[in-house]
């Protein structure tokens, strides 16, 4: 009885103070808080309405078999013996374009915006108690824990203490009264095991999504969205989210290899050529249509204006800026 009373009291609270001033001068402080909170609220809403359904994310037997069958990679040769970073990045982008297709690329940024929006939405829930105690989470963790390839990745990204600290030298500050030790990190950290681990992780993701071992399309049930949010659902209809994921993984790979190349340059004390996404795009065959910057911006604004258009009852095929979306 006492707990019930206490609980009822917590459900009703007094607002002691309202600060209307901070937002006038410090919106930068407020926006990230709002962003996370709204993302969580939307995620809860999507889960409660059955739109977001993690239970159907994976075919567990296939994933287990896939993870156990991937041959263990030789230890990092990304920078020494393998193809150059730019070739790898170029090949990945080329592969992504082949997978998504020309029409897919025209809608890519639209899908990416929708996907990244949802991706951001799912982050807080993944970190929450709700998700951590969910049976699906335990399945994911069990599968990963039993996979040799995952063990290998974890070994790679872990920097042994012995390697992390090579030299220590005592130094005296300018007053000559204090001594401190300067620890010089080993060369492994300059290469960045984390970068290597991320690269392997991207490769695994690429493989699993590309072979439909992980199927994002099963998570999102667009038809369950209530009308007010159907703009998002309609925009995403027909888009293969797995291909979108491969596309975003490819972009991550380009960025990662660019960073890795920079790290290699620092390690070798050689001048390095930064590899950017634009440079890679420039090498792509012109027949493979790459959205221009203006059309990318247009498609991004579409997903925002689409919601408003749906409210006004306008057709979702109408586009105010003249850009046509082909089915």
């Amino acid at each position, binding site marked *: 009885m006492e707990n019930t009373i206490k609980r009822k009291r917590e459900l009703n609270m007094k607002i002691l103070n309202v600060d209307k001033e901070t937002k006038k001068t410090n919106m930068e402080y407020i926006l990230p808080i709002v962003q996370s*909170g709204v993302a969580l*609220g939307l995620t*809860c809403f999507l889960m409660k309405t059955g739109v977001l359904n993690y239970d159907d994310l994976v075919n567990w037997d296939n994933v287990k078999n896939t993870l156990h069958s991937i041959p263990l990679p030789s230890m990092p040769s990304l920078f020494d013996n393998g193809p150059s970073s730019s070739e790898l990045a170029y090949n990945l982008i080329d592969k992504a374009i082949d997978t998504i297709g020309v029409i897919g690329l025209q809608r890519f940024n639209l899908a990416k915006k929708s996907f990244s929006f949802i991706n*951001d939405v799912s982050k807080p829930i993944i970190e929450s108690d709700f998700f951590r105690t969910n049976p699906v989470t335990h399945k994911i963790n069990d599968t990963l824990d039993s996979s040799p390839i995952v063990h290998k990745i974890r070994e790679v990204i872990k920097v042994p203490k012995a390697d992390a600290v090579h030299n220590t030298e005592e130094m005296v500050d300018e007053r000559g009264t204090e001594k401190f030790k300067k620890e010089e990190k080993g060369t492994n950290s300059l290469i960045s095991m984390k970068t290597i681990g991320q690269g392997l992780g991207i490769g695994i993701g690429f493989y699993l999504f590309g072979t439909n071992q992980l199927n994002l399309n099963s998570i999102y049930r667009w038809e369950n969205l209530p009308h007010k949010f159907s703009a998002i659902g309609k925009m995403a209809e027909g888009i293969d989210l797995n291909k979108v994921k491969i596309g975003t993984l490819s972009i991550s790979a380009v960025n990662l290899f660019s960073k890795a190349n920079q790290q290699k340059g620092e390690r070798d004390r050689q001048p390095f050529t930064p590899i950017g996404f634009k440079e890679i795009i420039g090498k792509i065959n012109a027949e493979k249509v790459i959205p221009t910057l203006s059309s990318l911006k247009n498609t991004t604004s579409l997903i925002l204006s689409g919601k408003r258009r749906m409210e006004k009852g306008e057709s979702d095929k109408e586009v105010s800026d003249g850009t046509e979306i082909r089915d």
Partner: protein
Amino acid sequence: MLEFGDIVTLENNLKYVVASTCIYQEKFYAYFVNVDNSQDCILGEVENDDLKLVEDPEKFVEIMPLILDNVDLTVLEEGGNDEE
């Protein structure tokens, strides 16, 4: 009346940002996010300085779309991380 960006201090001495508001069945609702813990979010009915939390899942599903509808999606535009 509470507006987006207001920071309220509740009876438990915790501070929350007002992320969005809406009117539902002639009652005023607001969605609050704890400034120190963004996983602590409250959907509540506000009347003067009284806040009544919405705990019923069905009511939550009814009200949240209105709350989310009033959120400027450009707030979330910076979100989404390509890095895996």
